[in-house]
């Protein structure tokens, strides 16, 4: 028998000199490379020749809803059961069906991760919504992440559409430079996801992004600046959505959020570095934001109405006993200059019972319990 002793020895020796077919962690290729596209098994009819597109961007927290993972620092979760993931995704699907987007940008979606019970979330959303096509932009592809027992990771961003996605590619973003070699090997490699969608005979380029959250070396700022350069250089109409991990330029509160611990519990790796809201200003100045800066207002109450993020859920309390609630804006939608959003439709979908802009639609789903991010939504007028 290959004894257990030898098995352990193999593990020790082998991990150092592995020759298996699959690498420890896959580096995202530099530059631009094609991204995989998926199609629903059953295609649902899409509105022909629409005047506008219903657009939504949402960080779905890999189907974890409000389960407190260890890097949230409010819990110790590392893994979910399949039943938990399916229940959480059912809530996400209900919200997506209610919003009925024509184009959906999703961040933190997983194709095959141990922590989300290997659920193929791209296929799940295609099978359970009216969205017909998807492009998946893999950003974290590790065979086994030896941190807290996290294990296999296949996470990325995705663009879903009712209309055919005829091309998709990933544009590599800068990696962090403030990590040791081992951590960097197993860490996320951010990218800009780009898909070309054929809306009737009108090609529309859609982008999805999710920039760095915890760097101390300016990586996030460099990534945001690259996003601005890429979309600015894009010809034809385009849409950009995602989690920028950055505050709007007029944010009144820039630190000491209610979901941050006062005493470090889970190490320095997940401490929030200072925000740099000015880096978002060119997006509002040069492009068509779904919500103009003026609408963010200059009072805490006005800005709170457009918050999109809270690490702490409503059923948990911080060290001062305050329940979690949306406390900052990190998620945005933009469109190419010269195009317009219907201001009566654009909003942040924050909580059940909320009237969505001036549409007459009252939100039934409760985004506060479905993810640590709220969806951003609006109808974009096709040029």
């Amino acid at each position, binding site marked *: 028998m290959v004894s257990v002793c030898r098995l352990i020895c193999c593990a020790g020796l082998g991990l150092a000199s592995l020759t298996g077919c699959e690498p420890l962690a896959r580096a995202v290729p530099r530059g631009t490379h094609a991204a995989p596209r998926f199609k629903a098994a059953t295609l649902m009819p899409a509105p022909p020749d629409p005047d506008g597109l219903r657009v939504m961007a949402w960080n779905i927290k890999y189907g974890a809803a409000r389960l*407190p993972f260890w890097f949230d620092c409010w819990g110790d979760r590392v893994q979910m059961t399949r039943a938990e993931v399916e229940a959480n995704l059912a809530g996400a699907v209900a919200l997506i069906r209610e919003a009925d987007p024509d184009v959906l940008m999703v961040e933190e979606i997983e194709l095959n991760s141990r922590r989300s019970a290997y659920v193929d979330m791209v296929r799940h959303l295609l099978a359970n919504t009216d969205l017909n096509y998807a492009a998946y932009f893999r950003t974290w592809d590790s065979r086994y992440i030896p941190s807290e027992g996290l294990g296999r990771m296949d996470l990325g961003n995705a663009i879903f559409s009712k209309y055919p996605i005829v091309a998709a590619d990933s544009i590599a973003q800068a990696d962090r430079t403030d990590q040791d070699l081992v951590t960097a090997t197993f860490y996320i490699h951010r990218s800009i996801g780009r898909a070309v969608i054929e809306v009737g005979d009108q090609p529309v380029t859609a982008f999805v992004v999710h920039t760095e959250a915890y760097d101390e070396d300016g990586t996030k700022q460099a990534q945001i600046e690259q996003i601005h350069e890429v979309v600015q250089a894009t010809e034809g109409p385009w849409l950009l959505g995602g989690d920028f991990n950055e505050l709007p330029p007029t944010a009144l509160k820039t630190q000491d959020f209610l979901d941050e611990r006062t005493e470090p519990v889970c190490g320095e790796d997940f401490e929030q570095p200072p925000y740099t809201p000015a880096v978002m200003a060119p997006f509002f100045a040069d492009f068509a934001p779904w919500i103009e800066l003026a609408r963010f207002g200059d009072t805490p109450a006005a800005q709170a109405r457009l918050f999109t993020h809270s690490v702490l859920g409503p059923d948990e309390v911080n060290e001062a006993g305050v329940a979690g609630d949306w406390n900052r804006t990190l998620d945005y939608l933009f469109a190419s200059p010269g195009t317009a959003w219907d201001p009566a439709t654009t909003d942040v979908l924050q909580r059940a019972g909320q009237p969505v802009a001036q549409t007459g639609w009252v939100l039934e789903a409760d985004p506060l319990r479905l993810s640590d991010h709220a969806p951003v939504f609006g109808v974009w007028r096709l040029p």
Partner: protein
Amino acid sequence: MRGLWWGLWALAALPGVAGAAPARPPRESAWLAPAGSGSVGVFNPLRWALTDALTLEAHPLAFFAAPHVGLDWQVAQGELGGRAWAATARFGLSVPSWALRFGLPFGARGYLSPTCAVADTGEARADTCAEAGWAIAPSVGGRWTWGREGLLTVDGDLAVGLLLTGERPASLDTYAPLQLAVAPLTHTWRAHVGVRTEHAVRPWLRLAAEVDLYRVGDVGPLSPWTVSGWLGVDWPLTPGFALTSGVIWFNSDQGAIDLVADGGGFVRVERVRSNDVYPTLDALWTW
């Protein structure tokens, strides 16, 4: 990496000072070393013959990460087809949860299992940490070897993880050697059958080949079956010292996928098994 294989093979195949070394008792067989003798390697276990029929086994390095001990008891010898045979009963006991409960240097908590930093604050939180409970894993098996120089060994064993406290942790879903080592804890049980053949090609060179099949309890979505194959050589340099080298291959389900063409430029997810090849290289002392 191919250069490494050839290098190891060349090292093992070289004749030299070992030419005068006496024939060595075959490892991993039902033939046990005489009372008072023993062997130990860096990666091979410590074996100590209590009597001619009882041998204790433990791995010095792994012992502190996963305390364990094994006992081989030779229960019968005989002759079949003009060749001698021996049979041993094998018993073992391990504490597989040790490595998941303690941090470095005695375990891998924080790497293979949660640190439970929030739980340790004592705050009342709805979600609790999935810390591995304490468990022991007794094992029982048998080994039958036919022949003394050209050997054929068949063996099998079963290990069962008995939870003493707390919860059974989730499957690690990782590299096969590690996965199998903690399987009695994570998957309730681990069964194994194997066949090994070993031949003394020269007094200074033994060749061995082995195929093993493992089955663990049904936990999670991954296949419970693992297959492995091993090819190796022993190269005795002196009567009390040998080099061993080889290559081991594992085929297991570690949750890997491929994206395969689905027509029209689209793809779909297809689950695939993982193949891993590791070198095995060790120095072995006997007395």
